[in-house]
């Protein structure tokens, strides 16, 4: 058992536990904080997998910007606890059953030798996953999709403003 493997299992444990905690927390603020933890764990897995640039993006964009937005909205609406009375009695058992089926299918794919996944990971080249290499590919081969992404973000921004605008005071 190497150091990497120990590190991986440790991070994986943190990720799964934080995800389950997010799922079962009554308070939405807790859920959000557990999710931040989960994201950070995944970012460190990215580092383990030689994806330094993506790991940094994960931390700044997801754990930073997006989750802050979540927390901000939760606090703005005061919606920490909304589930007062249970409804949809069959929803929980059926959901768990289907989740188990999904797990079974994943397991079948992984261990049932349906797909011949690679064994141990081998070495990588110099600078694999670095911001420079990813950026070169991004601006060489994916320039147009990249620019389209900027338009997408602009549209999302406009959409968010329009949706949240207070029409009661505005001029219809």
């Amino acid at each position, binding site marked *: 058992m190497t150091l990497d493997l120990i590190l991986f299992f440790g991070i994986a444990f943190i990720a799964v536990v934080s995800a389950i905690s997010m799922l079962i927390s009554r308070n939405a603020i807790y859920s959000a904080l557990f999710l931040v933890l989960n994201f950070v764990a995944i970012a460190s897995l990215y580092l383990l997998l030689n994806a330094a640039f993506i790991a940094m993006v994960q931390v700044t964009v997801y754990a930073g910007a997006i989750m802050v937005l979540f927390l901000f909205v939760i606090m703005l609406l005061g919606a920490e606890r909304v589930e007062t009375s249970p409804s*949809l009695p069959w*929803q929980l058992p059926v*959901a768990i059953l*289907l989740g188990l*089926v*999904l797990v079974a*299918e994943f397991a*079948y*794919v992984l261990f049932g030798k349906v797909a011949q996944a690679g064994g141990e990971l081998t070495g990588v080249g110099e600078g694999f996953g670095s911001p420079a290499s990813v950026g070169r590919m991004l601006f060489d081969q994916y320039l147009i999709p990249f620019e389209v992404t900027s338009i997408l973000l602009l549209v999302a921004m406009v959409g968010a403003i329009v949706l949240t605008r207070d029409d009661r005071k505005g001029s219809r």
Partner: protein
Amino acid sequence: MSFSEVLQGGSLFAYAPLIIAFPLLGLLINMIFGRRLGERAVGIIASSAVGLSFVIAILQFFALSTHPEGTSVPIADWITIGQLAVPWSLKVDTLSVTMMLMVTGVSALIHVYAIGYMHEDVRFQGDPGRFTRFFVFFNLFVATMMVLVTADNFLMMFVGWEGVGLCSYLLIGFWFEKGEDGIGNAIAGKKAFITNRIGDFGFLIAMFLIFGAVGSLQFADVFHWAHEHGLENVDVITAITLFLLLGATGKSAQIPLFVWLPDAMAGPTPVSALIHAATMVTAGIYMIARNQALYDVAGLSSNLVALIGAATALFAATIAVGQFDIKRVLAYSTISQLGFMLAAVGVGAQVAGMFHLVTHAFFKALLFLSAGSVIQGIEHGHHHLEHVGANPGGGEAFDPNDMRNMGGLRSKMKITFWVYLIGALALSGIFPLAGFWSKDEILADANHESIVIFLLLTVAAFFTAFYMGRQILMVFFGQPRSEAAKHAPENPPVMTVPLILLAVGAILGGVLNLPGMHTLTDWLEHTLHVHVTEFNPVVAGLSTLLALLAIGIAWFVYGRQPMGKGSPDPLRRMLGPIFVGMENKWWVDELYQFLIVRPYIALADVLADVIDWRFWHDWFHDTVLARTFREGTRWLNDAFDLRVIDGIANGLGNLTQAISGRMRFLQTGYVRNYALSFLVGVLLVLSYFIFGSS
């Protein structure tokens, strides 16, 4: 190729279709551009179209002089149905070319005359716009007459036969809004048309019989068949020829279908001259002459033809004596002369019949046109009086056709008088004018064949001379019996020149077939079976003597002491009731009215009431059909529509409603339920990828 070579080769026959094409072209030009061209151009186009046809006819004559056996000029296949094959082809032989020459020649002259006559007539009748229409109809008539004459088969002949009938109808009713009660002319046209329909019916039946017996409508096939198998099929041929005779009596105005021709005088005078004297009415004679091969076999039919002809000749001649309308006298005279021709072809003297047909065309056209000239002179005089303010008619309607309004025109209209005199003498059969030769040939042939026919015709000839003498004396001699007649002027040369040309024809027509020379006989020998009847001086002398006697009597009655103004006909005093009979046409019209028209109308009324109204409408339609329909629809409505159809529709609706009523609970509105079903779908798709695609 020189002209003589063309003649040798007989290729002039190829121009035969033009004889129909020229008048058609003329009528199309006039029909389309006529209103813009003006009267003069319209008249010239129409006349030259017919003149060109005459030229073509002369070319055909030359072609035949080297190839007298004639030919058939194919134009197109017309009908080909199974066994029936009717080509559209023109028969050019000596008989048809005789007709071509006569028809186109006389037509050309009458066309020229009509330019002058119609110019006045359309103004007198008050509608100058109809000038063009008249010439369109006239050209159409010539075209259809040519189709009739050149026909190579019965069906094509029937097309021409109907075509000339149509033109006749159109032209009789040319002033359709005039006449008695404003519809007199229209009724006259209708009468001609319907009477002719009866004859056409006979022609049609004959055609069906021919096709049934021979299987072909071509003249050549039919005559060949009659020649080969005639004796076994006498009954059929007798039936055919009798039906053809019915057709001929309609078209040629013979007993019993002659009644339309006098009324046909309602048309303008050139129409009477061309269609109802010279050409169309001779179609029946031509048709019977053409079918000589059939009539030779059927003796009964031939005898009947001769008898009908002779009877008509005498009967119509007696009526002509009692008429006062100048054109009606000539109309009955025409019927009478057509009777002569029919009698001739009936006794087997086709040549004599055709001879008389041609000469009659000359002098009868001449007489009619001269009568038109007289009428127009009287109209001019009448007009002149109106112009100066006198009241000529004494307030009554003035009839320019009535001979009682004439008299003394000899000095006013010199040319007209002389040509009229020539025509009348030719018609009376005075030596050496055309009528003498042709009529005597008929009488000689009749004398040869049957004494009854001969006697009837001889008496008819006597009456002919008498009524012509009476007419001449009433119109041209004595004192004018009306103010209009006093002021009647002569007509312009465009009218008198054709008259003079026709008069020449009436004088010289006899040379066509002089005794001892037999030009026409030799000519027609190539087409018909002919026999030469030698000149019979006794017959000729007798008929001339009778004619002179009749003219003498006429002078005794009308000339010695001219009829005064307003006085009755002196013959009325002498003959009493017989004259009344003549004057009233022996009440034939009334008889037909009583025997046929009234019962027919009564029958039609009864049938309309009983069959159509009560049976069909009241019983069948209202009771049977309507009730069945109503009951049926009620049953369909109650039992079928409400139960079955509505049941299906409502059932489908209820089913859908029930299903969707249950299904709607799937639609919980909870987004998590939807997510659940979405997951189920994902799992299924994933399962398919994992387990299904191996």
